[in-house]
């Protein structure tokens, strides 16, 4: 995994015992190989499997990180043979893997373990056949009863699938040394109530330590680097508080529109689709206290504390603390694009937001009074994710008149994508006889300094789940705390009677209301 020490949730063997059992591992940079296992993908004919999961697994095979006997069972309703499924997955790897062209020998060895089972997720018979198939596989491929279930279906099926897995004993561990785990894709519910219900159902079948709720943002190398940057450098942490920080801006901007996902998006909106998970995850990493150690529960404990310290935006306060809007027609990279209400499968009177901005306060010792501005939107000028820490101005200005014209506050920017790096803005004297100041930008870029390809987020997260490390996954209380924040806002929005949302032109940085939102506080949004 990413961090120094790996939490162990595996039954039987703790990490310390493992290293004693395998002293050859000392000094090697390669991850421990997971135990042999079968990964069962529900929703195997879908886009996620094709674009992300199988290419990620193949890349892990290329990196020699999969155990011998590793097997994949794809489950979906579509009529397909095992051979047909393997061919389709090979095409997917050819199209979407970051490592191309495909390596025939490695693919062939990997594909030997891929099989397909046609079945309806809502029928018990599917799970009976799956049980038989898994028993055969475990015998033939020596996977020792270890199973990793992946819910890559639409969320409507989650409850049924988990319940059937439980009812058919597919998650029952016969031996202390084997394990059964489940990976759940977002969204984890659509509000606090549904999230709680889903969590209850999942925990009826799987122990919490065996549940891996995936938010692929946490698998990104640069997101993990937030922790490294904050806690490996002595110079920043003393400044990382209300004494020195004026405010924080977190931006997750997308240049694309709903891209054929109009039906899903119209039910969801930016607040549920992006803020509840990605933005609040970034917020927790920026604002959390140092964990006692870098392993799953201590890190997640600190993240949960941040979420619990976020001052709730009660329904009657949403107008003051939030802005929402929909994109109108405009241009994306010079090409005319339709407005949200003209997108396919979007209701013409839709009130789903494609842009959301909010101001949060974290009521704790460190952050009291510091506003955190979060913003996300579709059809913005570019795809960019960044966290900007804006520091307070110098307490006393020595420079007056023209000299201070070029002075701007110091800003520390953590770029998450696409420019992964860290930048600091500070003032310098312009060369010459006059005292004139200008802001300059000192930057560190990952791509420029370490010209190595980072693993895809799914590679990291799948491997972590196989190894039983939950550090980069969201825990039940974390998900519920995030939903608690978001649900109060969406409830507030629902109570406001309006016919339409404010609009912003596609290709712009959002509605004028969002600009006014910061302007009245003497601040402005960054244009990253």
């Amino acid at each position, binding site marked *: 995994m990413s961090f120094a020490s790996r939490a162990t949730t595996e039954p039987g*063997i703790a990490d310390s015992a*493992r290293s004693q*059992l*395998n*002293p*050859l*591992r*000392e*000094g*090697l*940079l*390669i991850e*421990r*190989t997971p*135990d*042999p296992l079968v990964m069962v993908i529900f929703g195997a004919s879908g886009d996620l499997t094709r674009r992300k999961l199988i290419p990620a697994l193949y890349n892990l*095979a*290329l990196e*020699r990180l*999969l*155990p*011998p*006997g*590793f097997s994949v069972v794809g489950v979906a309703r579509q009529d397909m043979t095992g051979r047909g499924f393997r061919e389709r997955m090979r095409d997917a790897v050819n199209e979407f893997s970051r490592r191309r062209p495909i*390596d025939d*020998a*490695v693919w*062939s*060895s990997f594909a030997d373990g891929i099989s397909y089972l046609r079945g309806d997720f809502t029928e018990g018979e599917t799970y009976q056949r799956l049980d038989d198939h898994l028993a055969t596989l475990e*015998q*033939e*491929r*020596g996977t*020792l009863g270890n199973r990793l279930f992946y819910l890559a279906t639409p969320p409507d099926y989650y409850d049924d699938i988990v319940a059937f897995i439980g009812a058919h004993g597919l998650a029952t561990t016969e031996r202390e*040394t084997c394990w059964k785990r489940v990976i759940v894709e977002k969204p984890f519910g659509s509000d606090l109530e549904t999230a709680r219900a889903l969590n209850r159902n999942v925990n009826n079948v799987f122990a919490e330590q065996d549940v891996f709720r995936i938010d692929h943002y946490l698998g990104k190398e640069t997101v993990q680097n937030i922790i490294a940057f904050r806690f490996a450098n002595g110079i920043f942490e003393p400044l990382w508080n209300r004494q020195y920080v004026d405010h924080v801006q977190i931006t997750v901007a997308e240049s694309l529109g709903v891209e054929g996902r109009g039906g899903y998006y119209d039910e969801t909106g930016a607040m549920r689709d992006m803020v509840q998970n990605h933005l609040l995850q970034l917020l927790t990493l920026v604002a959390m206290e140092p964990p006692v150690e870098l392993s799953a529960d201590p890190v997640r404990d600190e993240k949960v504390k941040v979420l619990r310290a976020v001052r709730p935006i009660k329904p009657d306060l949403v107008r003051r603390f939030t802005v929402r809007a929909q994109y109108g027609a405009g241009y994306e990279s010079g090409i005319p694009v339709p407005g949200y209400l003209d997108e396919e499968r979007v209701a013409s009177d839709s009130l789903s937001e494609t842009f959301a901005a909010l101001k949060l306060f974290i009521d704790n010792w460190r952050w009291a009074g510091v506003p955190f501005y979060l913003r996300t939107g579709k059809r913005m000028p570019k795809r960019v994710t960044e966290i900007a820490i804006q520091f307070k101005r110098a307490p006393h200005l020595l420079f007056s008149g023209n000299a201070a014209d070029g002075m701007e506050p110091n800003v520390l920017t953590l770029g998450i994508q696409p*420019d992964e790096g860290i930048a600091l803005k500070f003032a310098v004297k312009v060369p010459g006889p006059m005292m004139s100041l200008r802001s300059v930008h000192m*930057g*560190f*870029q990952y*791509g*420029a*300094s*370490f*010209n*190595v390809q980072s693993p895809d987020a799914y590679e990291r997260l799948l491997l972590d789940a196989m190894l039983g490390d939950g550090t980069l996954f969201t825990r039940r209380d974390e998900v519920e705390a995030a939903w608690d924040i978001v649900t109060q806002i969406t409830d507030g929005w629902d109570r406001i009677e309006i016919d339409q949302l404010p609009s912003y032109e596609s290709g712009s940085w959002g509605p004028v209301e969002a600009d006014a939102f910061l302007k009245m506080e003497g601040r402005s949004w960054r244009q990253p």
Partner: protein
Amino acid sequence: MNPASRRIQIDSGELRTVNVDSVTSELSRVWGDISRQVEERTGQIPLRTSILTLVVIAHGQAEARTARATLDELVEQMPSRAIVIELGDSTTRLDAHITAHCRAIDGGRPACYEIIELRSPADRVGALPSLLAPLELFDVPSFMWWVGSADFGSPRFRRLTASVERIIVDTSQAESALDSLSGYHTFLNHEDCHCTGTDLNWARATSWRELITQSFDHPLTIGLVWDIQRIEAAYDPNAEAQALLIIGWIASRLGWTLHAAIQTPDGISVSFATPGGDEASVNLNPQTSVGVGLRSVRILASARRNAVRIAIRRRGGDLAAVSIETAGAARQERVVRDQEPRLCDLIGRELLLHTRDPVFDESLDVVAGIVARLRATHD
């Protein structure tokens, strides 16, 4: 070079007579030029990130060419200052050549690095440390890559390596890997040596070490590593150093004590005593083929009723097959990619570690012990 990168290069033109001031002022001038050019072409001020200084020692033009070609790839990965010292014959003039390079990846902000090339007659090596020390970047680690065969006992080697923190050598460049590894061990353990070291053969053996280690991660084999009874390694003659380092690595990790080492008609036979008092035997079998390096490693481990046979075999040029056989379980085999790493990748890997590598040092200790036993037997 990254296919998406554009490169701008400025060099100092004519060769200059060397002193530190002239080199640094030339560097400033070159950077001034390149900054202007980069800003004109990309609209952005070039970014310089220093991670390390790499000093490269090359004897003669052939090694210098190898060094340049490797650096060309390497500095793309790790922007830094590279100082290439080409040692020539006594007619060579001490002079310098400076280049600065910037590249813009995927249209992003350009990143830059610099190369200082110094040419010196070999008999004026004594003067070089006084040039090297002020030219190395401060506050970042300094490495030395010795391109060719090294005489580890020579004053020249000691003097040139004195200014860096970590040295990278290739013991397979020497005629005898045994002598070379032993000499390197003596050098690194000498009281006057203040740097740490590594060997490119250690880097070449990394994928084999990983595959062996992973074989003992398996639930059916974990713990059996302590019960290894026999190891057989087959290798091309040019990979003897790798084979020895792998044996040294296993023995040192498992706390084995060297018992005997003899040269046999088939290669080298070594026996160890395990901490439990059992014997572990090792056969190193050189092959007559060339070009592939290590060919196979077979390991037998057995404890009471449990036994495992692990075989890792090179398959073709860039694949390895790993099989694990345990009593009462299906044989498990996987095919993995195991490409021969490029020289720049090997060096890049070793540049990631800038402190002492105790695992390498302890492996080398065992190898030095084996060499001493072989010599004693031979004498």
